[in-house]
């Protein structure tokens, strides 16, 4: 067994790979946040709660209707997206003329309600969600034992990030969307239904969160706190990357996952704080974030 810097190579490569997997979740969540922020100018504090909701929907589909993982991967984002439409239409749309801080406070309140209700109804020790039969087992990569499902998470997250990028950067719809982000009034004058677009953007953003939630369900127990654990870290990721670009969110998400993974090898005690430390360094060096445009 050869070693790198005194650490066994399998351990190091293993942790790197795991970092990429964690990074996949950071990327998906911060991507959704960035899409929503770009269009609505709202930091969606409820993002973690909706991530959790996605996992619960997948669990509920299996438990009550017998609908399995693959359908859940499609249905849960649709259900949560529809819920997002209701939230946007009923509540969030009333805040667009106000200070952005109110959006943060409103969505924080929504997060508390959703998580509280989940805790009330399902307890908080978590419910198991099985790995789909076709993705069970593990591959021996020589340097580590990679569960097939984890590999699938990385692939699925990458594909989803790429698809989002294509939709926003390469399609006419995306072009309109970007234009509306720059100047909503002008785009509306061209006959585009901007309020509908905003609603659908929110739905799309939270659907991404729900998609991540379904991906996460077999790895972590489906429990009401799973979103709250992620959201603050994702905020730090967003501050580091800046919410300006889609590519930025994805790269930062994966990158920080890797850094976190490496910290777990070299100094595990700091693995919970390392992302925040990176955030401080970035704030000192590039206050607008790595990919952000100066305000």
């Amino acid at each position: 067994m050869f070693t790198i810097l005194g650490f066994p190579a399998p351990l190091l490569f293993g942790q790197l790979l795991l970092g990429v997997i964690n990074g996949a979740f950071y990327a998906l969540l911060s991507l959704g946040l960035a899409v929503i922020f770009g269009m609505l100018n709202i930091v969606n504090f409820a993002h973690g709660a909706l991530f959790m909701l996605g996992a619960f929907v997948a669990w509920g589909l299996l438990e009550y209707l017998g609908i399995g993982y693959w359908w859940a991967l499609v249905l849960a984002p649709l259900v949560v997206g529809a819920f997002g439409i209701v939230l946007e239409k009923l509540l969030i749309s009333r805040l667009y003329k106000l200070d952005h801080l109110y959006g943060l406070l409103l969505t924080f309140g929504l997060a508390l309600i959703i998580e509280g209700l989940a805790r009330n109804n399902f307890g908080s020790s978590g419910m198991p969600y099985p790995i789909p039969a076709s993705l069970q087992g593990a591959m021996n990569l020589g340097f580590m034992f990679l569960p097939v499902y984890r590999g699938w998470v990385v692939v699925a997250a990458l594909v989803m990030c790429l698809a989002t990028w294509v939709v926003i950067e390469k399609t006419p719809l995306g072009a309109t969307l970007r234009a509306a982000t720059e100047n909503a009034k002008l785009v509306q004058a061209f006959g585009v239904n901007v309020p509908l677009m905003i609603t659908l953007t929110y739905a799309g953003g939270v659907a991404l969160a729900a998609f991540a939630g379904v991906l996460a369900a077999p790895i972590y127990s489906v429990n009401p706190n799973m979103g709250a654990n992620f959201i603050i870290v994702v905020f730090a990721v967003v501050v580091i990357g800046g919410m300006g670009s889609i590519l930025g969110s994805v790269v930062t998400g994966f990158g920080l996952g890797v850094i976190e993974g490496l910290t777990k090898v070299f100094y595990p005690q700091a693995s919970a704080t390392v992302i925040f430390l990176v955030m401080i360094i970035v704030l000192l060096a590039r206050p607008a974030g790595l990919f952000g445009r100066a305000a």
Partner: protein
Amino acid sequence: MKLSRRTVLGAAAASALPLVPARAQKPTLKFGVLTDLSGPYQDLAGPVAVAAAQQAVEDYGVAGKGFAVEIISADHQNKPDVGAGIARQWADRDGVDVILEVANSAVGLAVAGVAKDKNKVYVNSGAATSDLTGSACNANTIHWVYDTYMLSRSTATSVVKTGGTSWFMLVADYAFGQALQRDASSFVEAAGGKVVGSVKTPFPGTTDFSSFLLQAQSSGAKVLGLCNAGADTINSIKQAKEFGITSSMQLAGLLVFLTDVHSLGLEVAQGLAITESFYWDLNDRTRAFSERFKPKAPTRRPTMVQAGVYASALHYLKTAEAMGIAEAKKDGAATVAKMKSLPTDDDCFGKGSIRADGRCIHPAYLFQVKSPKESKGPWDYYKLLATTPADEAFRPLNAGGCPLVKA
């Protein structure tokens, strides 16, 4: 979950009663069940623990006696400050005579201090720390169900004996995890095994244990000791299975509850060695209790913590009636002293006793989780591997450093 809401609301209604001036003819004993109603321990304790106290009142036949019992409950939210605040208020304002349950070691220790200051009776059944009957023991506190010492002794010793000689510890990085690691490591070594390494996982908030598990795997140890609880244990077991660690290492969950196994599912949890002091399907008496209790929690079986609330409430009632209700209400320390002098006997833990340091003594059972094939129905999860007799199961009286124990 209709049950939990009804129980909670009922308890809340009961707690609203003292606002109306009491005109009761009978003297009334007041129970306060301080538990986790919203957090990671609400399944293993929670509303069902409140119902267990109610069951004790019914089984004791309080209705036909010359006194009444009122039960109130509150959520400590796993925060020591909240728990201590509620206990203080119960003592100052609400006239609570005995505080029951209190899962979570940190809250359990904080409440012990309050019980002593206010001279109340405090019987803990949910907390793990052996300090409750060691350095932090006091004349008002009894620790009923289990502690870190008992868990480690039973699980660690037996696993080493069956060939699991080298261990790697996965430790939740807080007081409880560290206590468990300390106790378990000493038993592994005492039994001739060796602890080759350990890793501390940040607590709370670690949901992905895979990287820590990789370290465990690369250590080459035969046994992975899980010094954690609740959601941490569930996640680490699931992920150990996912990474194929279960094929090269044996898992030893040092604190796993029946509800954790339920949550994991037998497919994942099978084969795990677990120590508990109560299992609903252990013998005729425990089965009888579980059947009586069933209407209060139709969809689940009681855990050892919930059984502990039942048993300790029953023993308190016995003691209070023996010494007189007025006497029992007056002096918590005197009541605890009397509880220690009377032998305990109930359907859940059988015959036992309470030591001078407040430790309740009964046998510890080592179970193995059944495979899905072996399980005959819902909640049929354990088979008995070994029994540690009551007098050996717990830390020797003079080894805990409890000031109440005179050398």
